[in-house]
């Protein structure tokens, strides 16, 4: 077969940003599948249209998910991507690697796949792009020996992910890396065998900066926070002032609750503890001077997801503060109660947030056993359409 030309894709090798086309070409040197992918993609660029069919169900023994089946609609022309499935490997907490482990991943993928990957997928997995059905089981076996396992797909728990947390961040209010590892192990069955109405994602951020975008991208978002008051080191404040930082303008005036008072004469910064909403802003701007409080834990939010079907939902507060320490029993129990309730009440392809929206937060709270608190809402209802429990009614 003569080499095909890829004039459009070649354009995308120009420019300063590293090129995915160069990467496909690099893989194509060793892999026929990668070569066909390149040519098929050029065809898409010509046609302005994808050339992949609706996926079929493929997988490995003992698992209900973790592989996305994929077939081109032009198998005659591009036989090496006739089957081009993706494997999802569960990443280590915080996406930390030794080069050894990475090389192992590469070596196995050189043998069993196209040599193309995504580091990482949007949910957090290592994405191994493109292999044939017959390679799935052998590839899995070798990855398993190397210490890796599959991630989630389908109507199951999706691969949890977390921010770098205490590994490299001074803001972490709980051990995100440990919790992510712990709960991923705890919920292996939920992760690998789809059995729910739809997918469920958990993401963990060590503080309200939310560096894994959990509030937007996870059904359950665990965001580090504290119960007491942030601490301020006045010497460090003086140092910032000496550097010429506009503390009033860049910190106090941007505090959403106006909880900070700066005494420019004394170069002292003070917080009104009961007014602070722990948004992280002052800590972000003055990391050497301001720190979270001592009594640390996390806020649990539920219901986040992107736009399909009912509109996007941001996750909302269901537990304002929970201690977040191994073995995370309270959290795990809560997840199990929520899943059970969702499983019982949810329709097919109904995310937990959509279910709660449909049946009402009150019912959710009662049936899952959470006490309603004003922190769960920005503001109370504007309508008076209250459902009255039978036992509060005079018969």
């Amino acid at each position, binding site marked *: 077969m003569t080499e095909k030309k890829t004039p459009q894709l070649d354009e995308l090798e120009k420019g300063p940003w590293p090129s995915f086309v160069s990467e496909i070409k690099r893989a194509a040197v060793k892999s026929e599948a990668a070569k066909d992918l390149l040519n098929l993609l050029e065809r898409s*660029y010509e046609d*302005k249209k994808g050339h992949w069919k609706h996926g079929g169900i493929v997988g490995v023994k003992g698992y209900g998910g973790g592989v996305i089946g994929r077939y081109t609609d032009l198998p005659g022309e591009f036989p090496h991507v006739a089957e081009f499935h993706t494997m999802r*490997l569960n990443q280590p907490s915080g996406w930390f690697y030794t080069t050894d482990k990475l090389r192992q991943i590469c070596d196995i993928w*050189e043998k069993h796949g196209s040599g193309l990957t995504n580091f990482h997928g*949007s949910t957090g997995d290592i994405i191994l792009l493109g292999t044939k059905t017959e390679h799935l089981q052998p590839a899995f076996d070798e990855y398993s020996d190397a210490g890796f396992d599959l991630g989630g797909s389908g109507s199951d728990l999706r691969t949890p992910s977390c921010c770098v947390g205490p590994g*490299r961040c*001074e803001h972490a209010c709980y051990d995100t890396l440990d919790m992510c590892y712990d709960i991923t192990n705890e919920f292996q069955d939920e992760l690998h065998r789809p059995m729910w109405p739809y997918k469920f994602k958990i993401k963990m951020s060590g503080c309200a900066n939310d560096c894994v*975008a959990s509030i937007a991208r996870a059904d359950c978002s665990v965001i580090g926070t504290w119960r007491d008051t942030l601490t301020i080191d006045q010497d460090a404040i003086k140092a910032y002032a000496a550097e010429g930082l506009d503390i009033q303008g860049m910190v106090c005036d941007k505090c959403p609750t106006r909880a900070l008072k700066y005494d420019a004469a004394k170069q002292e910064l003070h917080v009104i503890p009961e007014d602070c909403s722990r948004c992280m802003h002052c800590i972000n701007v003055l990391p050497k001077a301001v720190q979270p409080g001592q009594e640390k834990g996390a806020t649990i939010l539920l219901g986040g997801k992107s736009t*399909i*079907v009912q509109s996007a939902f941001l996750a909302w507060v269901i537990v304002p503060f929970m201690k977040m320490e191994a073995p995370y029993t309270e959290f795990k129990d809560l997840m199990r109660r929520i899943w059970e309730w969702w499983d019982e009440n949810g329709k097919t392809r109904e995310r937990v947030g959509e279910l709660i929206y449909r049946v009402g937060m009150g019912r959710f709270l009662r049936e899952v056993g959470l006490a309603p608190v004003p922190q769960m809402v920005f503001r109370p209802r504007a309508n008076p359409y209250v459902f009255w429990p039978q036992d509060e009614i005079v018969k």
Partner: protein
Amino acid sequence: MSRIDAGPPNYREMLPPIILQNYGKWQYHELPQPGVLKHVSENGSELYSVRVGSPRLVSIDFIREICDLADTYCDGYLRFTSRNNIEFLVGDPVKVAPLLQALEAKGLPVGGTGNALSNIVHTQGWVHCHTPATDASGIVKSVMDDLFEHFGHMDLPAKLKIAMACCLNMCGAVHCSDIAILGVHRTPPRVNDEIIQKGTEIPTLVGACPTGAIRPNPKTKSVVVNEERCMYCGNCYTMSPGMQILDEKNDGVAILVGGKVSNARTAPSFSRLVIPFMPNNPPRWPEVTEAVHHIVDVWMKYARRGERVGEWIERIGWEKFFGLTGLPFSDKLIDDFIFSKETFRTTAAFKY
């Protein structure tokens, strides 16, 4: 032999010694230069992280190459970020400069920290998915080339988070981004009765449509689409291959702006539609790169220090945003879905 449910590798085995020693003891950080983070611990230890842009879609040889670098400069440790950048974890300050040189030699961009543009979170597009309205990698490459200077400099008013998703499923979770690039369909699905008869649960398919546009057709044992009600979300196609939604003539790209995720200062918020459609114009989507560039320029010109895109727009008002950018406003930008009501301006106070 393979074990089932073994779970991921233990992260502790992946952490460099300097992190194991200072775990949870980091005290503060500085940004000595764009792309370089310096974290200092209680013990006085200093960790340098060098952040490097990646196309995310990479070959195993690319991975091996960065492993070589990590072996040389980082004792064999590195990590990836939540936006698919690579972070070289340098325990020995002396090795930072040589690493930076090595990266430059290889053409790997360093940046994405502080008030810079970071990598674009994105998705599969024409590379691997069955529902894309556009490609992801190609647009990302084009936009990053175009905005390249902002990756390596920290001269923006605030962080700039751009995301790209190739269809309304929004795997790139673009819905809360400073700037979101989104593949959109614009025509209803074409029903293929044969395919539907074969493998589709009709009630589930009917139920999948958010606008109730799909009705069962008992005669054909298939369905019909009320085209007037369809807004091309593609959810039916996700449910059944018999509802083909790809349309090379009409698929394209929309732009949404002003979302954010962090709780810092202002609450997390959704991005909002400001350009409903631009055509697919591969390989470099000039309409898209120009539109994004223009929005960034206007933001840089008018925002105050520390203002994310959405914070700036909310301060000046969306009516001013359209004025300053010159983007045309149309009824397509006005919500007409379930939660539209909260977007209507229920006050006589507004700007001209």
